[in-house]
C-alpha cells in the first residue's frame, strides 16, 4: 500500500517542525514512517547527517524497543532517548505509523525538548491521523 502527501500538507508539517523545534534550538528533526521512509527532514544548517541510514535504523530501533516493551508487559515505553557527549537523539511516536526524531545538543534541556516535541506531535497528529486511517 502506498501513500502520498502533497506540497500543501508537507509545507504545513515543515512549518510546525520549524517553528516548534528548529527555531527553538533543535539541530535536526525528521519525520519518518515505521517502514523507514522519510516524510520530511529539517536541520539548522550546521551539520548534515546520513538521514536515510538514520531513518532505517531509527524505525528498526523503535520497532525492537516496542517489541521489548510488549514482552515485559508494557504497551510501550514513554521515553526513548539516547544521550551522547555532544549530540542526543529523542524518539516520539505520533501514531501507529509515524515517528518523530529529534537530534539536539546539550544547550537544550531534555525537559524543554520533550515539551516542544509534545506540542509538535499534537499539531502533527491532526494532519497525519486521517492519512493513517484512510491509507495505511
Amino acid at each position, binding site marked *: 500500500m502506498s501513500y502520498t*502527501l502533497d506540497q500543501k500538507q508537507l509545507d504545513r508539517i515543515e512549518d510546525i517542525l520549524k517553528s516548534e523545534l528548529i527555531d527553538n534550538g533543535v539541530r535536526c528533526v525528521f519525520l519518518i*514512517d515505521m517502514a*523507514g521512509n522519510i516524510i520530511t527532514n529539517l536541520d539548522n544548517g550546521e551539520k548534515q547527517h546520513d538521514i536515510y541510514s538514520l531513518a532505517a535504523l531509527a*524505525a528498526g530501533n523503535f520497532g525492537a524497543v516496542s517489541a521489548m516493551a510488549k514482552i515485559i508487559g508494557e504497551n510501550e515505553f514513554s521515553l526513548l532517548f539516547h544521550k551522547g557527549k555532544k549530540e542526543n537523539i529523542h524518539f516520539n511516536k505520533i501514531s501507529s505509523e509515524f515517528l518523530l526524531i529529534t537530534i539536539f545538543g546539550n544547550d537544550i534541556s531534555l525537559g524543554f525538548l520533550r515539551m516542544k516535541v509534545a506540542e509538535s506531535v499534537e499539531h502533527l497528529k491532526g494532519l497525519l491521523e486521517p492519512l493513517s486511517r484512510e491509507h495505511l
Partner: protein
Amino acid sequence: MAFVNLKNKLIQVKIVYYGPGRGGKTTNLEYINRKFQHRINSEMVTVKTHGDRTLFFDFLPFDVGLVNGYQIKIQLYTVPGQVKYDATRRLVLRGVDGIVFVADGMLVRRETNIQSLRNLQENLASYKKSLRTLPWVLQYNKIDLKEQGIPMMPIEMLEQDLNQESPRPYFPASALEGTNVVATLKKIITLTIASIRKELL
C-alpha cells in the same frame, strides 16, 4: 508502503531480500554496493553479530533516477536468515513493497529453503500482505559451487519446491561472483515500480 512526496517529486520504495541463513542475501547487497558505488551516496549499514552474521538487517539506499519525472529512491534491506531471529525479520518486513527470495541452491539446504519461504508467508500475513499480491522474484544462488563438485539442486527441483503457486521470475545466480545479481535487482525494481504505479493511478 511506498511514500510519494509530491513536493520534492520523490518516491521511496522498500525492497527486502529474504531467505534462509547463509544463503547470500548480504552478499547480494555487498555486490550491488561495489558495483553501483557512484549511485550510492552513503555507506552500507549492517547490524551484525561478532560471528559476522546479520543480526538485524543490512541497509543500502539506491538511486534509480527519474521515472515519469519522479526521483525513485530504492531502499534495499536484508533480513537475518537464522531461524531464531524471527521477530527481527518481521520488523524488517514492515511496509515492504517488493521481495527478492534468495534460495540456497545446495542440495543439503532444500528443506531450509522451503521453511524460509513458509516463514515469509506467515510473517507477511501478520501485516495482512501476501505473496499472491506483492511483487517478488526468486534467486537460486550459489551456482558457482557446482564447479567445486558440491551437490546442487537442479532448477526444476527449486521451481517445484518454491515457485509453483502463480510462478514468478527466477534467476540462477552467484552472489559471490555477481552473476545475475544485477538482473535480479533490475527485475524486482521494475515489478515494484509498476505495482506502485498501478496502485496510484
